């Protein structure tokens, strides 16, 4: 029963979301509405589970003095610092606690998390340029199609492209609306068919990898 009950839960949960699309009856919809509210709560717990896992994994590294263990201490301390100022201070009624404007939590978000996250992603600009120089090789007809389109879109989408040739933006817009769109639509339809078939396999219990081992 350790596998059968979860498979049954999975099926019932999924089928309820499909059925409500076809059953407009208000009484039935309100039952589904209740299930949805429950789902929001359970999904939130899943995120907290992820957080607990982060603490667990890093605790083991610190305990065994594994690689970069001093940095793991900083990681865990930063995590608990945010929870302390955001939740515990709020419960205790400390003025700068909570998540409102002017709180410590807010200040740390704007002055630490925001620059860190933004800069992490900004690094990608350097790497894409480096990758373009080293790996972008026009060896075949198909690669040249890719390269020419990329260059036309890159230049046509920025003001300098319009300055070079007044109709450059129109050409770029045509590429985006016709050949590019056709390729994307084919991928979209194919991916939709794949997603639906995988979801059906999950609902019917044919796909059980989410259950893990015995």
């Amino acid at each position, binding site marked *: 029963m350790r596998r059968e009950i979860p498979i049954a839960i999975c099926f019932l949960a999924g089928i309820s979301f499909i059925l409500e699309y076809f059953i407009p009856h208000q009484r039935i919809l309100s039952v589904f*509405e209740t299930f949805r509210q429950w*789902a*929001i709560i359970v999904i939130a717990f899943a995120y907290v589970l992820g957080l607990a896992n982060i603490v667990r994994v890093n605790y083991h590294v610190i305990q065994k003095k594994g690689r970069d263990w001093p940095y793991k201490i900083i990681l865990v301390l930063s995590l608990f610092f945010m929870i302390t100022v955001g939740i515990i201070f709020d419960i205790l009624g400390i003025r700068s606690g909570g998540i409102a404007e002017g709180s410590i939590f807010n200040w740390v978000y704007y002055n630490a998390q925001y620059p860190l*996250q933004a800069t992490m992603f900004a690094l990608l600009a350097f790497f894409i340029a480096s990758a373009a120089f080293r790996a972008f090789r026009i060896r075949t007809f198909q690669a040249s199609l890719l390269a020419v389109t990329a260059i036309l879109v890159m*230049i046509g989408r920025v003001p300098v492209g319009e300055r070079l040739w007044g109709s450059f933006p129109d050409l770029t817009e045509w590429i985006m609306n016709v050949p590019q769109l056709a390729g994307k639509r084919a991928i979209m339809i194919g991916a939709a068919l794949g997603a639906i078939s995988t979801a059906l396999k999950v609902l019917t219990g044919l796909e059980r990898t989410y259950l893990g081992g015995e």
Partner: protein
Amino acid sequence: MEKLERLDRRIIFIFIFLSIAIPLLLPVNLDFSVTPPVQSFYDAIEELPAGSKVLVSCDYDPGSMPELFPMNVAVFYHLMSRDLKVITIQLWATGTLLAELAMAEVLEDFPDKEYGKDWVNLGFKEGREVVMVSMGTNIPKTFPSDSRGNKVEDLPIMQGVNTYDDIALFMNVSGGLPGTKEWVLQVQSRYHVKLGSGCTAVSAPEFYPYVQSGQLVGLLGGMKGAAEYEKLVQRPGTAQRGMDAQSVSHIVVFLFILIGNIAYFSVKGAKKRLKASR
């Protein structure tokens, strides 16, 4: 040429940094035209009568802020200038404070706008598509209170707002998953609402089919889309400011691709000739 092919990547990094820093320090302010998807997005808001309620879902994080924050600000500005009521939600936890920041910037131009009456931040809710579907049948149950702890039923702006039928237009500022695709699949196709999207440039190409099919009323793609929108609402911001740097950096990347290929084919040709001569 072989040396060029094996160029230290840190030299490439320096060129990229300069291609962005110099235009920011010495702006030229090249003009640009507005593309049809952005114009459609703008027109969709222009068509709404004053007092209509618009739901703006700010689903992004600081990682995509340079592209999405300017368009978030411009959208809020446009909505406020048209006397439309703004209900903002977030499906990304990181979006809550960014939405507040965007609105704070806009409210400097509209000091008479009142929280709870002209705009409200219902805050972040976990659940992604489940939240989207749940709102379709019961918004107050999904968001029982706003981001400041006020009960939703006590807010004047939320009076009469129970389902998607009570909202005139939907806007999604999307940094990834969950985002525009999920709004199209779960909300637009199910409830047939009017939905516009502002997204990162990475995602924009895959949303063109939705614009063509009518599932999206308009699309702002990346910083260029944000700059075009700033031009339409006549509120210059950081997106327009960044266009010169965008232009120069794109040319630099193009030149790197060109030089990389020239070096590669030169070296390849030389090796071939050497092999043939042996």
